[in-house]
């Protein structure tokens, strides 16, 4: 157990083998997150076409990884909690992938059903 403060967990039977993250690591992650925030904000003023969104999302994923690995201790806790994390990301991926695979492959028609074209405009004022 690495312990930079010199404190020793001393309970005889229930000793906690906890990895204590050095303050310097936390500060490094904190500064990195601030730099990435400044970077992603600055990139909004650079015209990269559709790559703007890609760069913004890549930076967001990097920031989220830093938070998850270091602030949420996933790097140090090799337990079941990782399964919950992987499951969450996997199901989020399913949710978005299958929604988009439906949405983006539909053949949109202007007026697929005659009755819909006649009735739906009557309710337009409720929606917009």
């Amino acid at each position: 157990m690495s312990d930079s403060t010199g404190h020793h967990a001393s309970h005889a039977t229930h000793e906690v083998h906890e990895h204590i993250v050095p303050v310097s690591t936390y500060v490094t992650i904190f500064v990195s997150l601030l730099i990435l925030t400044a970077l992603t904000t600055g990139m909004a003023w650079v015209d990269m076409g559709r790559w703007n969104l890609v760069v913004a999302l890549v930076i967001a994923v990097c920031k989220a990884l830093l938070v998850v690995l270091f602030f949420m201790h996933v790097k140090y806790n090799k337990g079941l909690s990782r399964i919950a994390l992987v499951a969450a990301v996997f199901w989020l991926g399913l949710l978005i992938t299958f929604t988009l695979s439906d949405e983006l492959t539909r053949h949109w028609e202007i007026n697929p059903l005659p009755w819909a074209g006649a009735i739906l405009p009557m309710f337009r004022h409720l929606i917009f």
Partner: protein
Amino acid sequence: MSEAATVHDNPTGFSHQFEDLEQQREAGRLGMWVFLATEVLFFGGMFAAYTVYRSLHPMAFDIGSHLLDVRFGATNTAVLICSSLTMALAIRSAQTGKKKGTIIWWLVLTMLLGATFLFLKFRFEWYHDYIEHTIPGFGFHNLPQWGANAPQVQMFMCFYFFMTGLHALHMIVGIGVLAVLTGMAGRGKFTSQYFAPLEISGLYWHFVDIIWIFLFPLLYLAGGRYPH
């Protein structure tokens, strides 16, 4: 058995149904991670809907994004990152057996940063939206240059208010949780052996930070700020 008696008889906070304190903490962590997995999907529905509608109406989402003030979005991102650091340091000060005053200091600082986030959001962003009539519904000001995009601009603002609103709700809950933790710290509940409530609440706090890390570029930076 009263709370005080529990602390007195069992200073480690160990519950007898577990093999040892480490297994107990692992169970607590797993429970919070499973809850956070449900939260990922709770927010995930909104992110999926956002993705679909942004792919259908990219122009309207660019226009809508320009109604938001990047300065406040970026400042609030920094504020939340600061609060994540102070939360991590609160847990660390318990782990390393610091005095309860130190734990309380970091927790109070975390709460103040959370409150700062909400203050900026309510006072300078949502109030501004109210004045400028950019809240969807009756009285939404459509600008003529939006043309046919106007309804979808309103939809972007719906996404903005529901996503940031749900996030703000989570911040309010988080500040409440931190207030309870501060009370527990004041009663000397946390030691270098027992700090599980701090740790799992920290997981929640960091999760809320991560949601904002994605909301900031998706809502404030969509469409860019370069001359179009």
